[in-house]
């Protein structure tokens, strides 16, 4: 009895913690590094300091700055290398895209291309219930922990009908983290094959998209499996992942 009373007391104390997202978007701290904004009109001619500073060659100078979010680690090297302030981070957490090309931000006037929804048939299949199997393929556990965080009471992934499941045979798709190491390639392929058709592949984090800091010849999931959604970051914030998943399911039109 005493224990039951204490359970109730603790429950009262801890309160209701689930985020109001997506009705309102929580404020990110000033230093949060979300979607980069480029102003290459500030670039002096023949300057390639940011390109040289980038640890993953995410930046290419070719008549303006082209920044590949799929390679970007959202570190501070390019910002620190540029006295003109041509690259800065905004606190915009929305980063996911449906194609590899849509992850490249080119120049000042680049429009923000957010992930499009699945087609009508796929939405009718997965829109109200999406089961995913996560496969860690050489990830440092940074991305995996943010996926796990989606299950906590703050983000509460379950309220959107999305759930991580134990078996690929129960899944509608796989969600891959890590650069896909040689020793995990076979296990990743087998897991993918075990998922019934039609199925989705979601690449989470710089490593899964491009190899990240472990980039070699053809790192990332894209060289092995057809990817339906890319969610950049190192690791992506839980809301960045949630944003990508909900856009894919057509639950976040506009905004």
């Amino acid at each position: 009895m005493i224990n039951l009373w204490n359970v109730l007391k603790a429950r009262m104390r801890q309160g209701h913690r689930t985020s109001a997202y997506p009705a309102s978007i929580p404020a990110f701290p000033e230093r949060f590094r979300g979607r980069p904004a480029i102003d290459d009109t500030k670039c002096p001619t023949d300057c390639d300091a940011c390109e040289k500073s980038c640890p993953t060659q995410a930046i290419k100078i070719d008549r303006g700055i082209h920044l590949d979010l799929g390679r970007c680690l959202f570190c501070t090297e390019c910002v620190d290398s540029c006295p003109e302030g041509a690259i800065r981070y905004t606190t915009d957490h929305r980063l996911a895209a449906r194609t590899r090309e849509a992850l490249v931000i080119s120049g000042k006037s680049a429009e923000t291309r957010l992930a499009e929804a699945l087609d009508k048939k796929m939405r009718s299949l997965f829109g109200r219930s999406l089961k995913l199997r996560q496969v860690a393929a050489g990830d440092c556990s940074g991305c995996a922990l943010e996926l796990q965080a989606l299950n906590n009471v703050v983000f509460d992934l379950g309220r959107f009908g999305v759930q991580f499941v134990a078996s690929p045979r129960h899944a509608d798709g796989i969600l891959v983290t890590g650069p896909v190491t040689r020793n995990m390639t076979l296990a990743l392929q087998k897991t993918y094959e075990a998922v019934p058709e039609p199925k989705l592949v979601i690449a989470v984090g710089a490593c899964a998209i491009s190899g990240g800091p472990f980039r070699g010849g053809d790192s990332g999931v894209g060289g092995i499996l057809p990817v339906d959604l890319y969610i950049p970051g190192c690791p992506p914030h839980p809301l960045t992942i949630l944003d990508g998943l909900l856009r894919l399911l057509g639950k976040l039109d506009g905004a």
Partner: protein
Amino acid sequence: MTMDALTARNGESFRTVDVPRLPADRFRREILDSVARGLRISTYFGFRPGAANTRLLCVLADDSEKTLSVLSCEPGGRFESLTPDCPQAHLFEREIAEQFGIVPEGHPWMKPVRYPDARDSIPGDTAFFSAEGEELHEVAVGPVHAGIIEPGHFRFQCRGEDVLHLEIQLGYQHRGAETLLESSPAPRAMAVAESIAGDTAIGHALAYCAVHESLSSGAVPPRAEAIRAVALELERLANHVGDLGALCGDVGFLPSAAYFGRLRGEFLNLLMDLSGNRNGRSLIRPGGVRFDLTADMAGDFSERIGRAERDIASAADLMFETPSVQARFEGTGRISERACRDLGLVGPTARACGVPRDVRSDHPHGAYRSARIPVSTIEGGDVYARAMLKHLEIARSISFLLSQIQDLPAGTLKQPCAAARPGRMAVSLVEGWRGEIAHAGITGESGEILRYKVKDPSFHNWTALAMALRDTPISDFPLCNKSFNLSYAGHDL
């Protein structure tokens, strides 16, 4: 001290030529004698510059003297294994054999560690220790597990429900981190260091920077040292709090599982306020830190940490007083103090066996040199002890944090870090949330990194999980596994 080893302090660099090169038998005897005196192997690795012979370097930690002993030998193609007389060497010797092709003769279980070479098979495709008998059966799990967790293969030999023996085969996460740390330009190497184990980005970044600062004789401003310690404790708090929640989840006690799950995020969010990233990436850089903890932030941090402390107390009190939780924790996955010392276990795992081993007080670095954190220990070595130990450490970590935040030294955040000096070696130990992280760097004639060795605490402690499972029902595996919460990526590198 004997002349058979060079003595250094944590984070001190020395000339590589000053490390004594002993004949193989004296090298072996010296290590055995030292371990018998209470020292432990902190890191032990091979080094082959160019076409020269492979040199073995062993770093022994003397926790009572607060020193490190470094010794070496060039054994040729074979050497007598330490493992039969000194079990804590077992995985280091397997690693040396895998990386340099020299054979520790007499090693009782000589297998590859990570299968790094494309010519090899992959980790699971190998022989495992097996037992045979009418009532015995084998259970194989992994590499892909049921949950959001890293890959590894677990092979259980069982009699009925009870585990006789567990063999853990890792290597699936191997990315070649050491090679990248040796060969990459500075910004990329820094990113790799932060990705050795993503939940220990601060711990490994600290060890990496300390090696480079030491090799270049760079100093770190006191304010930066304090901010580094704040970040390291925030990382510890996020993970310890998350672990308590996950332990509750594994025994089906959902109220505290939910509360701790949310509270873990509070500490990650503090790291995000400080560094712009929930794991604290980009905060720690050679020579100091990239971001300041302003006076305004300090006030806000203290208030939020205070609130979290009270909520943690409520969730933890509930957890530890609940009989169904106690019944599942007590006596489960026990490790003896003797096994702990023999296997050279580190971190909370060792401290939960009553062994007071903590780099923050044994080999203090940075801000821990002046501001001490008392070492927590608890007897028992079971899941309960490991959970209770984390609970105690959370409280001590919070009081350390609050005092640091309220009294940050003034001054700059960063000093330029010069190029590394040639022909030197540095070893840096950091008490990450899982235990002792050891990084070692050796420079060549022009100051370039010739060898970079990383040891995550998991490298010692995975064997503890295998030991904990002996004579334990296999259904307790998830609970035991979570009570250690070891890093696959940190082991596989």
